[in-house]
């Protein structure tokens, strides 16, 4: 590392015309430790509002200013959550929900990628596929629920199908749009080096669409979590959505809030995993992504 840095310096000395650019770039780019120091306090700032509200409410209930029956204080929510975790119920429900999202996401994302790639790369196929898919997209996905129940029964298949439908459209649109917006200038570089269609797809189109594909997959995953709740509302005996319905019917707002928190954590965890697993693929991007 040190030796390469040194050689860079001597390289600057010999090619004087560029030394100013390189010097400026070196000055402008902060080291990673510097970046971390700058961002630390801002991350803490984000905790301020929710923590303050939670403490205020906790105080209000403790000092008898509020009853806390309809809106339970944080301590009771945490107690419910840990009780659910201790009996193992929470893990069963969370795992069930996660499994449904995962299967639905895989089916929806795969078909979205395949159809999006087809419709993005061929004018004829786009004219064949896109109108139908756009028409289907105009249907609110929840409207499929009665039909899916009739067709696929009330068990897993209909739930997974609903999630897959929810995931499919953002992925399809994202992939097709990403392929259509690949820079013509880079494609021409491929032409100049006489790449075949397959080579062009592999060496230029695929890497070029990856960043947008990741974004499409992320929004697909987000919708997957949205639709799993709807799916579990329509009759489930397991899953975090079931905890919600059960909490409502039994009058247990703390259980509802515990399930909501579990949903939030699960969703965030899945999204972070997706981002982390795709990060090496889009490392080259020249964007502000690192800050997001």
């Amino acid at each position, binding site marked *: 590392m040190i030796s*390469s840095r040194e050689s860079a310096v001597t390289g600057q000395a010999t090619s004087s*015309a560029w030394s100013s650019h390189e010097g400026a770039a070196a000055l402008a780019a902060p080291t990673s430790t510097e970046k971390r120091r700058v961002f630390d306090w801002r991350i803490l700032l984000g905790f301020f509002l929710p923590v303050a509200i939670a403490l205020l409410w906790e105080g209000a209930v403790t000092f008898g200013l509020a009853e806390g029956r309809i809106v339970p204080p944080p301590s009771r929510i945490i107690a419910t959550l840990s009780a659910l975790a201790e009996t193992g119920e929470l893990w069963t429900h969370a795992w069930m929900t996660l499994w449904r999202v995962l299967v639905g996401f895989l089916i929806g994302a795969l078909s979205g990628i395949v159809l999006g790639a087809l419709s993005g790369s061929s004018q004829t196929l786009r004219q064949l596929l896109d109108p139908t898919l756009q028409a289907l997209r105009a249907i609110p996905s929840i409207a499929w629920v009665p039909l899916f129940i009739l067709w696929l029964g009330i068990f897993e298949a209909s739930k997974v199908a609903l999630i897959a439908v929810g995931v499919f459209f953002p992925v399809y649109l994202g992939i097709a749009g990403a392929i259509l917006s690949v820079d013509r200038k880079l494609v021409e570089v491929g*032409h*100049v080096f006489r790449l075949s269609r397959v080579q062009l797809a592999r060496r230029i189109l695929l890497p070029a669409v990856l960043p947008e594909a990741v974004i499409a997959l992320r929004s697909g995953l987000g919708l997957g979590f949205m639709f799993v709740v709807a799916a579990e509302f329509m009759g489930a005996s397991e899953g975090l959505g079931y905890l919600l319905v059960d909490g409502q019917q039994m009058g247990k707002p703390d259980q509802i809030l515990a399930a909501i928190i579990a949903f939030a954590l699960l969703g965030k965890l899945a999204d972070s995993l997706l981002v982390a697993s795709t990060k090496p693929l889009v490392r080259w*991007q020249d964007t502000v992504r690192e800050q997001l």
Partner: protein
Amino acid sequence: MLSFEHLSKTYADGTRALSDINLTVHEGEIVALIGGSGCGKTTLLRLIAGLDRESAGRIRLDGETLTGPHPAVGIVFQEPRLLPWLSVFDNIAFGLAGLSASEKKQRVTHALEKTGLVEHADRWPRDLSGGQQQRVSIARAFVTNPKVLLLDEPFSALDAFTRASLHEHLLGLWEETRPTVVLVTHDVQEAVTLADRAVVMRPKPGRIFDELPLTLSRPRDRTGLPFETSVRRILTALDHSLKAPQEQPQRERDRQAAALWW
């Protein structure tokens, strides 16, 4: 030898970008295509590169008619057009997919040395300055050892210092294999610095107005009188190409002969 025979290009919207271009570029010659905007310089280059098809006429390279992108033709675009997901090394090696790893490494390393980019081999294009990116682009075109190298105003977006230095890098690479070079530029100084012959083009429709040989010895002294004279000759021809469509280019050639005489 690269030759154009009655080459014409009319775009789908009816724009006549090129009309009846006849020109022969000898092996190892550097020809500068110069002219105002819209005179078809870039169109001509895209036809040679095989990125567009000619409407009439043909382009021949050593007797072979070009019908598409050709392995012996390399191009450097106006923008670097590097692939942002490849390192500098891999960008330069992009056109060497068919070669063995060691051969690839040897060629790329040599190109890196020639363009002064050795210490940047593992960096992303986004980390390079504009001049460095364009050097990578030039190296990418040179590593395939093209017989014909097309340069589409590759230095137009750079500052004067960077440009002068890139001219040196370019001539350094050119000296090794001496490919035929077709350089499109609107910078007269650049044409006189690099080219053996300046071809002045005229717009609407794009066609050749005049040709001026540049017989100055290399390396060229940009401050010398011969350099200045050549620049002025091209400027005059450019002036005529834009202003007086009816004037005979022959007169310009006479004047140039007179200039050579002393």
